[in-house]
């Protein structure tokens, strides 16, 4: 029951619900309407960006499961995206597997490799783990760059366009493919944290010794968290392989790992909705800067020349600002805005 003083649960079932109030249902309906209207309101360029956001959302949700919910820092995101992309691309181009099957296998393979690279997490914590995952990123990069047989010595894999996709309506069709996949992935992630498995992840994050004491199997929780998170990341990588139709190592470097970490920091660690906000923010930022830069560049040519550097600077400043001013990210800002409206005209 929602009142001005907060939400009161009278049964455990009610507490476990994903949405508690009418306002939440109303907002969900609004978002769904918006998502259905978007493809007809945007032009091809912005629809392309919307599609990249949808793919990034899946990856960011995966990373947040690991970093935000389980507290295991990972700099290996780019490597795991690469595993997903390469696996699905190789399976469908060379073995001729149907695309959905190739994607599923890619998810499983990435999950397995994620669990493998998660093994150091059983012994290492915090900073050491960050460095270990940095190594896994570099090693995966080495493998995909130097093992020629992966790309048949071309250095890249060309993925044929999905047969039913037309050139004119490319972005629109992809939007309708990606939207449901992303929606289901986000919903799944949200639901994981209503189960005992998800709760055990959070217990490991909050206080691992206490978690062990109340009977959480830490080994299992950590390895499962790595596998589950990598599964989402593998899906994101596989989708990006079919969407962009080429797979090259340049798209999975350490910078990509950093970009995804920035997404979940800006969005909010330990929040599924936050990963979505963060992915939208971080993917829109460069596009908007380009737009603004082109407008301003007409009068001040300096801005056009320096646009890449300015983008990098703003990327860094955004991360630093969020960490210093609102470490819990956009999700927290959104919660505060809602509270402000709910309690208006009182401050609290």
């Amino acid at each position: 029951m929602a009142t001005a003083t907060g939400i009161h649960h009278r049964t455990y079932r009610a507490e476990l619900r994903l949405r508690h109030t009418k306002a939440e249902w109303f907002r969900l309906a609004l978002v769904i309407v918006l998502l259905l209207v978007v493809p007809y309101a945007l032009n091809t360029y912005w629809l392309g960006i919307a599609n990249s956001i949808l793919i990034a959302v899946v990856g960011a949700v995966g990373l947040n499961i690991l970093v935000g919910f389980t507290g295991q820092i990972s700099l290996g995101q780019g490597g795991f995206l690469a595993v997903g992309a390469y696996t699905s691309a190789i399976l469908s181009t060379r073995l001729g597997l149907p695309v959905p099957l190739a994607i599923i296998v890619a998810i499983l393979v990435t999950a397995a490799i994620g669990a493998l690279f998660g093994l150091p997490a059983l012994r290492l914590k915090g900073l050491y783990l960050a460095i270990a995952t940095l190594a896994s990123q570099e090693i995966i990069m080495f493998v995909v760059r130097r093992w020629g047989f992966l790309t048949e010595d071309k250095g890249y894999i060309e993925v044929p366009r999905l047969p039913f996709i037309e050139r004119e309506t490319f972005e629109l069709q992809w939007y309708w493919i990606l939207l449901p996949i992303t929606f289901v992935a986000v919903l799944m992630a949200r639901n994981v944290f209503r189960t005992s498995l998800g709760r055990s992840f959070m217990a490991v994050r909050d206080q691992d010794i206490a978690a062990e004491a109340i009977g959480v199997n830490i080994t299992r929780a950590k390895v499962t968290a790595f596998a589950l998170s990598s599964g989402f990341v593998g899906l994101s990588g596989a989708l990006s392989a079919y969407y962009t139709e080429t797979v090259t190592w340049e798209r999975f470097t350490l910078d990509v790992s950093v970009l995804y970490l920035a997404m979940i920091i800006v969005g909010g660690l330990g929040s599924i909705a936050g990963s979505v906000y963060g992915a939208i923010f971080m993917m829109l930022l460069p596009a908007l800067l380009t737009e603004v830069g082109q407008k301003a560049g007409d009068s001040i040519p300096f801005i056009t020349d320096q646009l890449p550097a300015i983008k990098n600077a703003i990327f860094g400043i955004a991360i630093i600002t969020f960490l210093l001013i609102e470490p819990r990210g956009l999700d927290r800002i959104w919660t505060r805005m809602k509270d402000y409206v709910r309690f208006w005209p009182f401050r609290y």
Partner: protein
Amino acid sequence: MSNFLLLTVYGLADGAILALAALGFVLIYKATRVINFAQGEFLLFGAYMFYTAFVVMRLPWILASVVGVIGAIILGVLVERFVLRPLVGESAISVIMVTIGLSSVLKALVQMFFGTSVREQPKILPTGSIEFLGATMPVNRLLVILIAAVVLAAFTIFFRRSRHGIAMRAVADDQQAALTMGISVRQIFALAWALAAVSALVAGVLLADLSAVEQNIASFGLIVFPVVILGGLDSIPGTIVGGLTIGLLKQYVSGYADPGLAEVIPYVVLVAILMVRPYGIFGETRIERV
């Protein structure tokens, strides 16, 4: 044999620069428990500050070095005061991310002022070579080893003998105990960042003198991680041993096996060390079992 000697000199020179870069990293970690992902950008920034003073402002190299050192100290103190201090006591992920954000900003600043093209800088170190045991040794690399050794020795003496050095070690050992003894932990934090920036400046200038002033200098920052893990995250002798080992290993692998493999071999060592002995050769062992 001569090839082996040459590779050894190259490896030692690389290793000496790595040790300097790692020294700054370890200083920061020891004093403040911050993992600095912007170490490579500190090298880059240092190299460009020296370039500005030396080539753009046409100062003699000694004066240029002084300008560079002052710039590095200011950079270190500013970074500590405005970026890291508000995050004292925050989780590891926040601290890591803030230094990553910082690295992005520093790199962008360099890119804005100097562009991405390679800058030519007149060589400071003599470029000739000398014959030794049938091998032709480049003089500048031998000198790099010497300079790095002198700087590292100076730092070691500073920690052992000077008041501030001892205060730094006290803070690294136990912050609260140091506070009760009247040591200003804030000043020590600032000092650690300033010294780290200075040692990065030396490393950056030496690196720029061996190759060129360019954006690639920053990539040295990542190889620092294998070095410090091998030596131990909080050990200053460890940086020297780790730096030289990784430097030699890279040169031998690229000389005798495959240059591509040389890029990844430090990380393989890193994973192996983490599996077997996570606190490195000289690192302080902290036992925490779950």
